[in-house]
């Protein structure tokens, strides 16, 4: 059988399929569907320093071939994560990447510092792009200078592989990607959700409690693939691609565009076994195509 192991800069994954941040909880809910060690990695729920209650409901709404969410980073905070969630994940031999979000730069630094001291975490993913939090999040992620200075500061406090997650709600994602690269990021992941909204006609007001939310799912896939394609041309860093992946053909689009690995988000809600099926289908694809490794197709759409 062809080997699915991938190397993304300093990070080695047993296969290139990750569970995307915020869509897989801390894994517990999916553990009854398949062994979590199957995951290339589990990117755990966006973590903040202090616990966060999240946004008022309604928090989600379906849209054509997608959904909006405005969870607002509900999470148990660093301490809660380390005490309640991490030990269970480690016992299950799950490859763990922690997605972090700060309300300000200091919080990012503290999170990175403290998580670097904890054994058994594979990498950090810096969420620069959560559109559902008032302070922090989005505005960090849309300005190249901000990204540069923040990433450089985080780089100084951690030896963990550093993944920077980019927002698609920008004019020029390649510029932001270069800023992250030049400041010491090891890997870039893209995309986060597109900002959107649905209006409740009967109530004549925005449907979501938070007014706007993040659009995910197949609807955004063409935008996400385009951004991966653009960023691949702009930087030399390995990329993790995501946005609307449901099937192996979707994942292959991202890989051909330049992603060395992919993450599955919203599809987990529709079909809890999406990830193990995708891994099997990638195997089958390599065998059918007579390829020994996915490396041969990463970025191949550029040739």
């Amino acid at each position, binding site marked *: 059988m062809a080997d699915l192991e991938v190397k993304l800069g300093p990070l080695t994954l047993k296969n290139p399929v990750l569970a995307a941040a915020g869509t897989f909880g801390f894994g517990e809910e999916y553990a009854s*569907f398949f062994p979590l060690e199957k995951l290339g990695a589990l990117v755990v729920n966006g973590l903040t320093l202090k616990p966060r209650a999240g946004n008022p409901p309604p928090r989600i709404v379906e849209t054509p071939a997608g959904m909006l*969410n405005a969870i607002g980073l509900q999470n148990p905070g660093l301490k809660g994560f380390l005490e309640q969630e991490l030990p269970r994940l480690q016992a299950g031999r799950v490859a763990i990447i922690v997605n972090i979000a700060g309300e300000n730069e200091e919080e990012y630094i503290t999170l990175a510092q403290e998580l670097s001291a904890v054994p058994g975490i594979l990498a950090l993913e810096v969420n620069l792009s959560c559109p559902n939090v008032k302070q922090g999040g989005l505005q960090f992620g849309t300005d190249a200078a901000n990204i540069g200075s923040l990433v450089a500061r985080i780089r100084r406090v951690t030896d963990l592989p550093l993944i920077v997650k980019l927002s698609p709600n920008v004019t020029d994602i390649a510029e932001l990607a270069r800023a992250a690269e030049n400041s010491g990021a090891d890997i870039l992941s893209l995309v986060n959700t597109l900002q959107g909204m649905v209006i409740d006609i009967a109530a004549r007001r925005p449907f979501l409690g938070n007014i706007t939310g993040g659009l995910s799912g197949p609807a955004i896939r063409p935008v996400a693939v385009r951004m991966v394609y653009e960023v691949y041309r702009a930087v030399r860093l390995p990329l993790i691609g995501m946005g609307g992946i449901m099937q192996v053909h979707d994942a292959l689009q991202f890989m051909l565009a330049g992603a060395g690995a992919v993450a599955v988000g919203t599809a987990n809600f529709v079909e809890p076994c999406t990830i193990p099926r995708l891994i099997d289908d990638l195997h089958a694809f390599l065998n059918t195509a007579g390829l020994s490794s996915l490396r041969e197709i990463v970025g191949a759409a550029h040739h």
Partner: protein
Amino acid sequence: MLFKACVESVEELARHSYYLLLREPQLAAQSRPGQFLHIRIGESLVPFLRRPFSLAGACPQRGTLEVIFRLAGEGTAILSRVKKGAVLNCLGPLGRGFQFSASRLPAVLLAGGAGVAPLLFLARALVGKKRRVALFYGAASRDDLLPLKRLLPRETAVHLATDDGSSGYQGRVTDLFAGAVRQGMQPVELYACGPRPMLQVLTKKNEAWNFPLQLSLEERMACGLGACQGCAVSIRQGEKSTYRMVCSDGPVFAAQEVEW
């Protein structure tokens, strides 16, 4: 908890209301009143997310499950057209369902519209436990009322209300019940499911009565499993409030906890 359930029948029970009988023995054996199924409607990208439906019944002997749903949009429209023999991709049984207390108080079930579904399952379970059960059931009009005879154990006393008075009491089901309380109803345990305004009014009225009251809530859902944190409802915990998930912490909550 991912099952392929086989459609035994689909049937229009009342205007815009359908009865769906599924067979999946393992699922039937595990299901309890108040729990729900999260059903994938077709394999297409629209409708995209699964659709949650309360269990209106489950028979471990026959291996069958019952769902009763009202047409609401594209998903339920497609579901109303599935054919006998089709296979539905179901997650379930999800959620915690109703709490059965040790009390022997009579049970009163209050249903608004499609909210009657989980209460039918509950009624059968309570009658099975030899509890006295009354159902107060409201709908817009006579044509919207489900044929309850078929769906309920004989022992259940039924009280009907319609907005237009075409059947039973004219007005709200909460007012019908409040009338019964005024006329000296003895302490009972309450279980309710229905539109949000109905549950709010009931909770408010119950502040005076102070009966034990469980509510089955609805919220927009993505995963149905507790992973996405999408189906939050604000829950009072002493002085503080916290968000709980309708799918995994509910859908049934004690009325006094719920913050509207």
